């Protein structure tokens, strides 16, 4: 790990640029992600925010939790908005209208604004090679509107639009492979992260903003309201997502060079059940009786994806 990346949380800047007073729920990791992001960037920063929990909770007029310039447009267009901000800054600096500065443009959106409604605008911005970093905080549903399924919702999870009924047991399909879709654009840097591993997240955000061009960080963020667990358990669940290999931590450079970077690589793999059992949205897999079939299907999916990742890493070394 290069020396300019912090090795302890205490090495992060003390200055707060996403402040207390926001209206995010108790135990919500989105605030942690926003706060850590501003500390990771540690430079003049403009934040572009897609509509979602973080957006609506941080800036209810006339209040504002951000002490950096912040802009929100709509749900599906944060990446296009960021393209405009970047272009405006670049041209005005070039023309001497504003002072020449190294200003980072960081775009942040939830899984709804990233996986689904915003995917086209993100693809366009990456395709154009816009100089910006995009951070997706993935809480696996449209949480801001009250827990509706998204392309990020895991298989079998209950949401208000993938209910558990007599003939349907939660969401029918697995998560959309977002990071591979993003990486397929061939951008210099894309990475997954978890709110349970702040130093890993900080390192990845730093790397993303240092790149001239588009970069992408995809961070899993368990939602206490939508996943139905106690507000004290957000970080624990986010760690189990990684330890169970449901949401492995890895980086993809130039669309093809894969590197797994689990901070605790040596830890033995935890069965998926350990991750699932804390989540009320998956209660139907355990009560009234255990649904071994679906749990096995999820375990097989995790194993298959992990093996695919190992293969891709092996290919990268060749």
């Amino acid at each position, binding site marked *: 790990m290069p020396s300019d990346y912090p090795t302890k949380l205490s090495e992060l800047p003390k200055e707060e640029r996403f402040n207390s007073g926001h209206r995010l729920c108790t135990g919500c990791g989105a605030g942690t992600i926003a706060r850590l992001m501003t500390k990771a960037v540690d430079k*003049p*920063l*403009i934040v*572009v925010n897609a509509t979602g929990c973080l*957006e*609506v909770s941080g*800036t*209810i*007029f*006339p209040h*504002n939790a*951000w*002490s*950096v*310039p*912040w*802009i*929100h*447009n*709509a749900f*599906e*267009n944060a*990446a*296009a*908005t*960021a*393209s*405009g*901000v*970047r*272009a*405006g*800054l*670049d*041209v*005005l600096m*070039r*023309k001497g*209208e*504003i002072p020449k*500065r190294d*200003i980072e443009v960081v775009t942040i959106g939830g899984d709804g604004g990233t996986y689904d409604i915003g995917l*086209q*605008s993100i*693809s*366009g911005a990456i*395709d*154009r090679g816009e100089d910006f970093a995009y951070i997706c905080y993935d809480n696996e549903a449209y949480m801001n509107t009250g827990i509706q399924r998204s392309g990020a919702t895991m298989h079998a999870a209950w949401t208000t639009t993938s209910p558990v009924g007599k003939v349907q047991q939660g969401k029918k399909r697995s998560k959309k492979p977002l990071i591979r879709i993003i990486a397929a654009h061939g951008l210099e840097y894309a990475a997954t992260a978890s709110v349970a591993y702040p130093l890993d997240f900080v390192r990845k955000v730093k790397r993303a903003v240092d790149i001239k061009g588009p970069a992408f960080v995809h961070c899993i963020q368990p939602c206490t309201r939508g996943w139905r667990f106690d507000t004290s358990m957000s970080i624990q669940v986010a760690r189990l997502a990684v330890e169970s290999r449901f949401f492995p931590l890895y980086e993809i450079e130039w669309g093809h060079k894969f590197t797994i970077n689990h901070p605790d690589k040596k830890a033995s793999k935890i069965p998926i059940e350990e991750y699932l059992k804390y989540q009320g949205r998956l209660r139907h897999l355990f009560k009234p009786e255990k649904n071994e079939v679906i749990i096995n299907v999820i375990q097989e999916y995790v194993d298959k994806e992990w093996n695919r990742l190992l293969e891709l890493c092996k290919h990268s070394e060749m």
Partner: protein
Amino acid sequence: MQMTKVLGMMGDFAVAEAAKLCNPDVVAAFPITPQTIIVERLSEFVADGEIDCEYITVESEHSAMSACYGASSTGARVYTATASQGVALMCEILYLVASARFPVVMTVVNRALSGPISIWCDHNDAMLARDSGWIQWFVEDCQEAYDSTIQAFKVGEDRRVSLPVMVCLDGFILSHSIEPVAIIEPTDKKTIDGFLPRRDPLYRLDVDAPIAVGTCAFPEYYMDIKKAQNEAMRNSKEVIKEVVEEFGDRWGRYYPIVESYHMDDAEVALVTMGSLTGTAKTTVDEMREEGERVGLVKLRCFRPFPIEEMRIALRDVQACGVVDRAVSFGSFGPSYAETSSTMNTGREGPLFRNFIAGLGGRDVTVADFKKMYEILYDDLKKGVVEQPITWYGIRKEV
């Protein structure tokens, strides 16, 4: 008066030349017929270094307007152009640009909306945006398209206004017709000889003085924000008049927001927007030769709607036909509804009739306008308008 050169050019070329003259900092656009030539020309200007501009080749009109919003937030001068489905796709963001008070200038090359798909002219695309908070002008010819584009930046960026401006020109009828256009050749290209100084924004995203743009407003604030926006729109009318006056004094071409043509002693009048105006003026000339007391009112500025000016323009006529190149299904045409409502606050006023005409590029000729005036004379004879909405020029079998 300053020197100008007259060239023959299509409307789209004229608009691209005008946009270039205004030195936009950022252009974000997506091609769509019949706007394409504008964005092609601008990308050539950028490629040849004729303008110093960031040109964002977005993947959709939705992203075009989204990028315009982002770019304008930095204080940049921003331009785009679209048509038809493009307006429809960016509609959501039009409201946000206006609400954020970003003076983006957009050319709308008017084209019918699908379906059925049609590439030809009508105004329903711009009418989609009539309540979005954009200033909207409809131009009569290529010269006016050129001049209006330049005026649009000055009006929109005026701190008393700070609103986006939409300049609408009729697809193909103007966009692809070659007309003589007087080109401005300024000595000081940076400011068009002082007419258009650099944008001085009300606010901008500044890392030294952070602000939040696009926040959430609860019921305690939302309505007041909308009221303030409406005040800006209403105030813009006087600024438009000032700018048009200054432009006219410099270059000799004046564009009143409501133009009265032979209205002094007119008995019956038509109201038109866009290129229909030119044909209607010819009709008035011919009918005046024949001794008919007909007149015409050209509604150039649709937003803000010139309530007082329309009332004054039409107060002395006995019958008035409002021609809409747009339709609001199950109701009156949009400009009819607004024009007639300005007159009916008192009991006195002309008889009113709405002509829905020229949708999807259907031709409206001098003979057609003559027929419309005749229908109005019939109304006058009867003293009453029985069926106020006439779909003019419908196929007999329909």
